[in-house]
Structure formats: structure tokens, C-alpha cells
């Protein structure tokens, strides 16, 4: 319980710090909003030219987009400390983290909270809301409960990716841009129906980096759409266990990495 209180105190200090530069904050938040907005415009203009993409309408693709982008946007608040973790390793600042009487994982998690990402989250939620209205989703109690769980699981999944990326720094010291494939690339991948991809590409994102559980399977369930690829509808309910399993793996990797940390000595 004390940890939760401490987390909010640290985050609060971080937010107050960012509010010192109000104009810059507003500009960056707006920039974030428009950057992701243009992303979605691309999808919109494609659908301006064609009525449907392999049987998926604009609203349905927007639902995929909204699910993936919202999960990622929430993660960006929580996991920023891991995203910029390489600075700590390069400058030897991780030594300081190690001598404090709290776990390393907790400290990095509470290290950063980029408020300007509100712009991105706002855009993602707007697209999600638009999609839900546009496709005329038939709500049930189960679906109403399922949606927040799916979004939370998506966030957990991206958090795992970012932690794995940060862990690499223990060995490489420098930032590994490679993980961008699964964060930014992954979000774009998850914004389109899985059927449009080649078979190896699909399998990669179902079984190896299970991003399909962040948007594709949840969307099928919410839309009552039978899977053209033949996966059963209950695959949607595997989303939370799959995402938390990936997080568990990432945390284990992190622990292993911390034990192998060698300071740069600077």
C-alpha cells in the first residue's frame, strides 16, 4: 500500500515539473494529437477510394486502430521510464537506483510520466468512440466488461515490450531502436485486419509476439464477426492471460539483466 502512495507522490512531482513550461506543454500535447490524427487520416483516405478492405469496413478497421492505439497510449504514460532507460545506463545513473532501498523495477516505473502524451491518448480514445458508434456495436454486459479489460491487457503487452527493450541496454549500453518494430510498427500492424498479411507475418504476431491478442481477436469478439482465418471466438478471452504472461517474461528478463549490470563508471 505504501508503494502505491509513494508512486503517486513521485509521479505528482514529475507532473508538477512538466507544468513549469506551460506553453511548451500545450504545444507538444497538440503536436502529439495531430501527429496521431494524421496517422488515422491515412486510413480514412484509403477507405475513401475503396468500400472495404477484405470485407472490413472503415468503422471496423477504426475499431482495430482504436484498440491498439489506446493500449499503446496508456502504456506511454506508465512505461516512459523504461523507454528512456538507456540514458541511465549511459550516464551511470543506474548505480544510484541500485543503492536506494526500493526495487529497481518500481523506481524506473515511477521515474517518468509524460503528461503531453495526453494528446495521443485523446486521439486514440476519440477514434475508438467513433468506431463503436459507426459500426453500431451491439452491447452486452459481457462486452461492456470485456472492453476495459482488453484495453488494460493491451497496455500490459506494450509495457512488456518496452521493459524488454530497456533490459537490452544492460548488455548494449546504447538504445536499441529495434523494439520500435513492435511498438510503433506493432501498433500500425495491429490497426489492420490480420488477414491482409502473409502467412509467416501473421503467425509471427499470433504465436511469437502475440500482438494479435491486443486488437484483432478482441475486435472480432466485440463485432460478433466470425474469424475468416478460422480461429475460435473464445480466443478473445485469452487476451488477458497472454498479455500478462508476456509481462511476466519481460519482468523475469529484467531481473536477470539487473543481476548482470556492469556500470559504465562515468
Amino acid at each position: 500500500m505504501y508503494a502505491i502512495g509513494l508512486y503517486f507522490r513521485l509521479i505528482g512531482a514529475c507532473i508538477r515539473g512538466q507544468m513549469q513550461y506551460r506553453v511548451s506543454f500545450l504545444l507538444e500535447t497538440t503536436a502529439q494529437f495531430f501527429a496521431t490524427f494524421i496517422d488515422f487520416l491515412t486510413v480514412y483516405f484509403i477507405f475513401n477510394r475503396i468500400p472495404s478492405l477484405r470485407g472490413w469496413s472503415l468503422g471496423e478497421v477504426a475499431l482495430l486502430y482504436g484498440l491498439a492505439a489506446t493500449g499503446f497510449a496508456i502504456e506511454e504514460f506508465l512505461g516512459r521510464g523504461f523507454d528512456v532507460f538507456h540514458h541511465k545506463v549511459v550516464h551511470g545513473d543506474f548505480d544510484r537506483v541500485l543503492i536506494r532501498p526500493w526495487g529497481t523495477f518500481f523506481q524506473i516505473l515511477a521515474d517518468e510520466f509524460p503528461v503531453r502524451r495526453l494528446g495521443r491518448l485523446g486521439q486514440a480514445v476519440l477514434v475508438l468512440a467513433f468506431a463503436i458508434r459507426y459500426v453500431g456495436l451491439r452491447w452486452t454486459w459481457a462486452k461492456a466488461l470485456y472492453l476495459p479489460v482488453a484495453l488494460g491487457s493491451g497496455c500490459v503487452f506494450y509495457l512488456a515490450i518496452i521493459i524488454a527493450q530497456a533490459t537490452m541496454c544492460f548488455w548494449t549500453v546504447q538504445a536499441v531502436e529495434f523494439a520500435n518494430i513492435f511498438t510503433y510498427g506493432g501498433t500500425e500492424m495491429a490497426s489492420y485486419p490480420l488477414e491482409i498479411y502473409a502467412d509467416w507475418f501473421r503467425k509471427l504476431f499470433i504465436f511469437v509476439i502475440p500482438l494479435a491478442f491486443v486488437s484483432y481477436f478482441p475486435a472480432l469478439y466485440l463485432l460478433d464477426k466470425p474469424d475468416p482465418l478460422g480461429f475460435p471466438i473464445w480466443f478473445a478471452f485469452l487476451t488477458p492471460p497472454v498479455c500478462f504472461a508476456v509481462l511476466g517474461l519481460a519482468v523475469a528478463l529484467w531481473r536477470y539483466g539487473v543481476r548482470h549490470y556492469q556500470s559504465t563508471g562515468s
Partner: protein
Amino acid sequence: MRLYLEVARKSFRRQMAYRTANLAGIAVNFFFTCLRVFIFTSVLAHRTQVAGYNVPQIVTYMCLTEALMMTAGAIGHWELMDSVITGQVAMDLARPWDFFFYWLSRNLGRAAYFAVFRGIPLFLLSRVIFQIQLPANGLTAVLFLVSLCLAMLVSSALGFLTNFTAMWTTDARGVASMVTTVMWFFSGMLLPPEFLPHWLRTLVWWLPFQAQLYAPTTIYLGRTGELDRGQLLALQALWALILMGVGKAMLAAGQRKLTIQGG
């Protein structure tokens, strides 16, 4: 002139130190290539043409724009901005060279590095995996290379302009991320401008960004859209001149209001 060539060469060689980063970059760019090829081939599934593109053309378009992105479609390099923050800019301004052409050469050197070590590997990978088209004839290939050089010039000048706003704002990142967003949309990086509705397409010709990726790619493909290749090249050259003029003017204005941070 020899000085600036030397500056460009140094910049090229400096970039060569980041070998692992470049390999990771190739992987990321190639992933996005696959993604965009899959998306746009399925847009064209069961259709012979969308927005004037057939399947081989759209595949080549996607592969080429992604391969050229770091060469002609990237402005987020912070060396100039960092030199404003550290105050190094005062020393560089005092040196007996033209400050604008110094940074232009540095940006061009980096762009040339990315053409060779990012563009060519990505091109070859795309050729093997997606069987992209080759230029129809020798003339097309030559005109494509000319267009690519102009694109590098436009992109390097834009890089200077966005970074140099640091003279007024100290942190140019906000401006740069705004410009990058708009640039990606209007340069044809995210989707070919032919997909846009008419009113937006008009805007494309009034902005410099089409000179970065759309023009060289269209010339490579040998397509004639609203403009033929002669007009595309002329427009690129015009934009290069305009942006260089703006750069010089901005430099003059910046020198008058120079604030050195720290000491």
C-alpha cells in the same frame, strides 16, 4: 567548394561509426516496408487499379519511399540544435565559412551515407523479396538519380530550417515533430498523394515536401500524373532554391538576435 566537400565527407564518415544502429535501422525500415506492401496490395486486391496505381507500381512505390526515407525524408537530426544549446554555435558562426553552407554540407554528407548504407541494402532486399520494378530505361535511371540529388538538397535545407529555429526557441524538437508529421503526410511517405481528395492534392504542389519522396519515386516509376517528369524536376529545383534562400535569410535574422546559453 573544397572545404564544403570535405565537411560533407567528414559527416559521411562520422555516420559510419554507428554500424549497429544502422543495422537495427535497416531491420525497422524493412519491417515497415513489408507492412505497407501488405496493406496496399490488399487495398488493390480484386481491383486492377486504385488511384492510378496497379500492384507492381504500388509495391515499388512503397519499397522505394521507405528505402529513401532516411536519405530524403528525415529532418530530425539534432547536431545543429545541440550546438545552439551548448553555445558551440557562436564559435561556428565566427569561423571563416558560410554557416548555412557548412550545415547544408553536413546534412548532405549524412544523407549520402544513408543513400549508400541504408537505401541500397533496403533496395536490394525489396528487389529480392517483392520483385520490385527496375527503371524502364537508362534515361529514367539517370533522371531518377538527378531527382534524388535534388530531393537530398531540399531535405537538407529543411533540416537546417527546422533545427535553426532553436535560435529562437532553444528547443527545436516541438517544431521538428510538427514539421515531420506534416512532411510525412505531404511527401507521399504515408500514402501516394493520388489517394488524397482533390482539394488536398492541390496543397501538395504548394508545399516543398513532395520534392523529397514523391518526385523521385514518380520519376523512377515513369508515371505521369498531374505533372510530367520535366515539370517535377523543375519544381524540385525551384523548391531547393527557395529553401536555400529562406535558410540564408533565417541565418541573417538569427545572427542579429543570437543568445548564447551558458559559457
